[in-house]
């Protein structure tokens, strides 16, 4: 069974304890930032910040709303990064987390380009740089613990559990309070589904979620890669065939030429 986490934006108070817990568990350094006019900090996720609460002020149903959403790796069911990775350093594990093996990575950054959520980040300031992203605390999960951010969340905005059960729980919450939530669980369908699931009081596109179809990002690349073996055999056979034909034609041409010469001699 595959684990997941449900984030309920109506329960989040924007305290950012999850950000701190994440930095502590992963031993990530602090970042120098400046006041950007919002409580949001640091301004962007980087190789040293795996998760971040976004703050959005907006008007919804004629009411002012201050909505939070937690950003981190979504741990896709069919991850673009894992499909893209040249050496298979990124892998979707059965338990849910998309893990990264820095013993394999060569630093090509294809995963960063291939991620539909723009999540994997790179250590641009290091001479020996690696890719960094949320690990879904695969190490803690292996020891039977919940992810650090879930453990620390004081309001129950984060629920960790079996993905299927979390979807049922999210559906129950929407059914109980249809006035409180938009009728959409983000992450059930998007790009083939993600381990992280979201409930929101406002449409997701208004708080910075990309609108994505249910087809995995890998689908066309998979088809192209499936065509490789037949193309390999086909092109090799075609070239050998053409070579044989051309040589044969040239030989026939030569023979014909010689015969004509002989005929001329006889004459």
């Amino acid at each position, binding site marked *: 069974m595959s684990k997941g986490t449900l984030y309920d934006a109506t329960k989040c108070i924007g305290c950012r304890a999850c950000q701190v817990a994440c930095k502590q568990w992963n031993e990530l350094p602090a970042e120098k930032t400046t006041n950007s006019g919002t409580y949001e900090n640091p301004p962007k996720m980087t190789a040293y910040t795996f998760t971040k609460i976004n703050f959005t002020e907006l008007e919804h149903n004629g009411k002012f709303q201050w909505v939070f959403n937690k950003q981190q790796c979504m741990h896709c069911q069919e991850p673009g990064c894992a499909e*893209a990775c040249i050496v298979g350093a990124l892998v979707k594990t059965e338990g849910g987390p998309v893990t990264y093996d820095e013993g394999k990575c060569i630093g090509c950054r294809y995963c960063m380009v291939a991620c539909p959520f723009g999540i994997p980040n790179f250590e641009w*300031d290091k001479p020996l740089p690696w890719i960094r992203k949320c690990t879904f605390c695969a190490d803690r999960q292996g020891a039977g613990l919940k992810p650090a951010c879930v453990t620390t969340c004081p309001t129950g905005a984060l629920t960790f559990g079996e993905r299927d059960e979390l979807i049922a729980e999210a559906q129950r919450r929407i059914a109980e309070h249809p006035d409180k939530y938009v009728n959409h669980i983000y992450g059930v369908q998007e790009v083939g589904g993600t381990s992280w699931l979201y409930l929101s009081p406002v449409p997701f596109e208004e708080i910075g979620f990309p609108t994505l179809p249910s087809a995995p990002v890998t689908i066309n690349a998979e088809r192209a890669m499936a065509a490789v073996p037949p193309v390999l055999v086909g092109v090799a056979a075609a070239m050998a065939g053409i070579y044989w034909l051309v040589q044969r034609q040239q030989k026939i041409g030569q023979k014909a030429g010689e015969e004509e010469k002989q005929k001329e001699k006889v004459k």
Partner: protein
Amino acid sequence: MRQLRQSLPTGTFVLGCLVILGLIPIVIRYLNGLGAISNLSDGRPWGFWISFDLYCGVALAAGGFTLAGVVYIFGREKYHSVARPAILTAFLGYLLVILALLVDLGQPWYIWHAMIYWNIHSPLFEVAICVMTYTLVLALEFSPAVFERLSELNLPVIRRFNWHIPLRIIRAIQIPLVIAGIVLSTLHQSSLGSMLLMMPHTLHPLWYTPVLPLLFLLSAISVGPAMVIFESTLSTRAFGHELAIDVLSGLGRAIPYILGLYLLLKLVDLLVAGELGLIFTAYPINLLWWTEVIIGVVTPIILLSRPAIRQSRRGVFWSSVLVIFGLVLNRFNVSMLALGMRPGFTYFPHWMEVAISVALVADALLVIWLSYRFLHIAEHGEAVAE
């Protein structure tokens, strides 16, 4: 030969300076990281190097497999004299791609991991394996030029070795080598397009299509002869050995057919996807599409379809320049200009990014100059043609 002596010392001096200038950023990169020499960021992790060195570099080296195919498989002996220079520039092109990756990769010392940790689902894995193997194939295809010369030299140790043995071996496996080169090229030229299939939401729909691999292959085949025309015209100016106009116009004649097929596929694909309207509505990005198609595809098709232009060296040369321009713009479009960035980021290449690529091209030009001086490059095959 007089021209050679006059023009090259200053030329080689400038090239040498460019190579040294390119070494400085490389040192900084290994001390302070990629952020110190590039404007790459989490929002734009692939920049100038990937677009120019990898995407343009591989496509512009397509002259190697197209010409080898025409001469050795299709038996068109007329083009024998341009096959060797084409294979040399292709070989150098691929070496440049690999050298550029040694700067661009985060962990270049682990580049060999691609050989032991296989992810057969990754289009980049296919590109890596094909590029590595094809570079080896090109080295073997070019090696007779070196062996021939070594066998002529009357130098101490070298003359004791019978250089005709490796020559005979290479000649015996020449046809399998050429076929392998064509297969590998077909695969990785198209896989560079497959790589972009992973970005359905970031690559603009004017360029994103499931047939990208096929478009990549066709455009590479069309630029192969164009690059050969371009290079041989320039090497004629630098080294003499003028090519027969017959050869040039023959190469030029093939281009409109391939480009025509390419254009047809591009338009039909947009039509089928119901996105043809975007070429008018997707302002301003559609300007890049129009520039690429009008200057790089439609104009050369018209020009090279006219016998008068094909019979003029100038006409063939400038038409090829347009084809090359169109291809370069196309590769920049799909891998940079029309590829979305993460929100809140901007990108313009750092001068040190450009300096490294320039230094690599200067490296290649120096090696080409040395090859023309010390090996039989241009004059090779003329005897066969006669």
